[in-house]
C-alpha cells in the first residue's frame, strides 16, 4: 500500500488472510478505534476487492457511519457497492428475524447469514479478501443469554471460515470482564486461536490530553520464524483525533 504507514499498520503488516485478530480493551480505554482503523483500511480504494462483514453489537450504523465519514470513508456508499455487509444487532428496527430470536437460535441464524455471505463472495470471485468483524463479544454473550458456550461455538465456526475461505476474522473483547479466574475461558480460548493480539490500555500514570493510551500488538505469526523474534511485541502510545490517529513510541511525541 502506498499510503503513509504508521506504527499500527506496521505492527499489523502481515494480517491479511487466514488470520484471527483479537482486540482487547477495558472500561478506561476503548479499543474501538482499532476497528475503525481496520475498517478504513479494508474499505479503502486500494483494496477494492475486499468484502467486509461487520456485526455491530455495541453501536448502531449511524455511529460508525459518522466516524468513518470523518476518516474519509463512506459506509453507506460501500454498502450500496456490496463491499460492506452490516448487521446492526443493536437497533431493533433495522434487525430482522436474526435478533428477535434470542439465545442459541439467534446466533445460529446470524452464523448462517455470515456463512452464506462468505460463500457467495468467494464463489463470485475467487481470491477475494473477506473480513469478518465483531465489535463486542461481551454484548454478544448477553444476546446469547449468558451462554458463553454458544458464543464460543459461534466463534469457533467463524474461525473455521478463516481457514476454509481465507477470511480475516477481527474480534473485540473487553479484557477486564474476564479478569476473574473462573470467567476467563472465553477470552483465553480467543487468545489461543488469535494470531494477532492488540491490547489497548490506559497509561499507568493516568489520563493525559496528548496521550490517550497505549497499544500492545503481539504478532504470533512472526514468532515462528527464526531471527524474527525481536519483532514479536510492538508497544506504542496513541492519540486519537477526529480524522486520524497518531501512533508513536513512548516519549517520541512530536
Amino acid at each position, binding site marked *: 500500500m502506498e499510503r503513509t504507514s504508521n506504527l499500527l499498520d506496521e505492527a499489523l503488516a502481515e494480517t491479511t488472510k487466514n488470520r484471527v485478530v483479537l482486540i482487547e480493551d477495558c*472500561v*478506561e*480505554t*476503548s479499543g*474501538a*478505534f482499532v476497528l*475503525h482503523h481496520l475498517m478504513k483500511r479494508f474499505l479503502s480504494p486500494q483494496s477494492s476487492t475486499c468484502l467486509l462483514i461487520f456485526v455491530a453489537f455495541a453501536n*448502531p450504523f*449511524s*455511529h460508525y457511519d*459518522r*466516524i468513518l*465519514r*470523518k476518516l474519509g470513508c463512506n459506509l453507506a456508499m460501500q454498502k450500496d457497492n456490496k463491499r460492506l455487509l452490516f448487521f446492526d444487532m*443493536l*437497533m*431493533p*428496527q433495522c434487525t430482522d428475524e436474526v435478533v428477535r430470536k*434470542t439465545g442459541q437460535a439467534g446466533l445460529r441464524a446470524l452464523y448462517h447469514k455470515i456463512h452464506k455471505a462468505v460463500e457467495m463472495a468467494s464463489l463470485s470471485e475467487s481470491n477475494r479478501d473477506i473480513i469478518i468483524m465483531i465489535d*463486542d463479544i*461481551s*454484548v454478544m454473550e*448477553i*444476546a446469547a*443469554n*449468558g451462554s458463553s458456550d454458544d458464543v464460543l461455538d459461534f466463534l469457533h465456526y467463524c474461525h473455521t471460515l478463516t481457514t476454509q475461505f481465507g477470511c480475516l476474522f477481527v474480534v473485540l473483547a*473487553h479484557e*477486564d*470482564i*474476564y*479478569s*476473574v479466574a473462573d*470467567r476467563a475461558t472465553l477470552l483465553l480460548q480467543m487468545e489461543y486461536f488469535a494470531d494477532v493480539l492488540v491490547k489497548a490500555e490506559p497509561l499507568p500514570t493516568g*489520563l*493525559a*490530553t496528548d496521550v*490517550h493510551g497505549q497499544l500492545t500488538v503481539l504478532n504470533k505469526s512472526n514468532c515462528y520464524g527464526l531471527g524474527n523474534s525481536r519483532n514479536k511485541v510492538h508497544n506504542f502510545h496513541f492519540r*486519537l*483525533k*477526529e480524522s486520524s*490517529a497518531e501512533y508513536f513510541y513512548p516519549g517520541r511525541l512530536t
Partner: protein
Amino acid sequence: MAATKARTSSFSRNFSAAPSSVTAGLKNGPNGTVFVSSGIPDLDKILGGGFPLGSLVMVMEDTDAPHHMLLLRNFMSQGLVHNQPLLYASPAKDPRSFLGTLPSPSTSKDDKARDHDVEKLSDKGLRIAWQYKKYFGEQQMSDHNRDVKLEYCNDFDLRKPLDRHFLNGQRIKCISLQDCSNMSTLLDCCSTFLSQRQESNITCAGRIAIQSFCSPQCDFSDLDWDMLSFIRSLKSIIRASNAVAIISFPASLLSSSYSKRWQHLADTLLSVRAIQDEDKELAKLLTGYQDMIGLLSVHKVARFNTQVPVILDATTFSMKLQKRRLLVLECLNQAPVDGSSGSSYGTTGSCFGSSMAGSLDF
C-alpha cells in the same frame, strides 16, 4: 449535509446563543448530538454540555450513603421543569412518594445572591495561586448560567420541594421494582413510555430514572443475565428515541465481572462516594473538607459519532452544598502542606527525607 451542519463548531457554548431553533431544555452538541441537562450546572459543564439524547447513564452507588439520590432528584426535577415526560422506577413500595422530595428551581433572588457572591470574590483581587483555578471556573460558570438560565439548566434549591403544578397534569409514570417479577414487564413499561411519546408527537426529550436497579429488594436481583439483557434492550430503545435513561446501581452487590459488564454497557459512567467525617488524613490534604458531602467520579463520558475520547482535567470532584441549598461540584484542591514545606526550605540538604515523602503523598 447534516454532518457538516452539525459540525460547524466543536464548542457547544456557541449554540446557546441561538436557542430559538431548539426546544427548551435541549442543546446542540458536537457530532450531531443533542444534550439534555443533568440538573446540576457543574456536572453539565464537566460533561461538556450534559447528557446526550439517546444515552444510557449509569451511576455507581455508595451503599453507605444516598448521594446518588441527589443526582437522580436533580435530573428528574430538571425534566419536570422543562415539561418533559418522566418514568421513575425504584425498589420502594410507593415510588410516587419520592416525587415529593424533588427539589425546586431556586428563585431568581437566590441566583442573584449566588452571582453576587462570586462577584464579591472576584472583587477581592489578590488571590493565592493554587486557589485561582477554582474561582476562575466558578466565575465562568456563572456567566454561562446567566445566558441559559431559563432555557437549559436550573439551579435547584434542595430545601424547597417542587411546586405541585409540576407534578400534576404531567406525564409522570412511577413503577415499583418490587412489582416487576421479571425484566420483561419493566422493559415493556419503558418501551410503551417511549412509544407513547412518539405517538403523541412530542418533540421534547423523555427521561427515565431507575434507582438502585439490582438491589436485593427486587425479585430479579439474582438474575444477572436477565438484568444485563434488560440493560442492553433499554440501551437500544433509548438510542432509537429522544430520551435519556439514568440507572443507579449498587456496584458492590454485583460480582466484579458483572459489574464490569454493566460499566461497559454505560455510555456515561459516574460514581458517587461518601467521605468519612473523621478522616484526618484527607482533611489535612484537601481544602474545604468540612463542606464536602461526598465525591463524584466521572469514569466515562458518552462519545457518540466520534472516536476521540473526552479527557477531563480531573475525574474526581467534591460534592458540596452551597448554603445548604445548592449542589455544586468542585475540583479537589490540594491544600499546601503547612509547616513541613516551610521546614524543607530550611533543610535543603535533606529535602528528600522520609518525612517529606510521607506528607506529600500524591
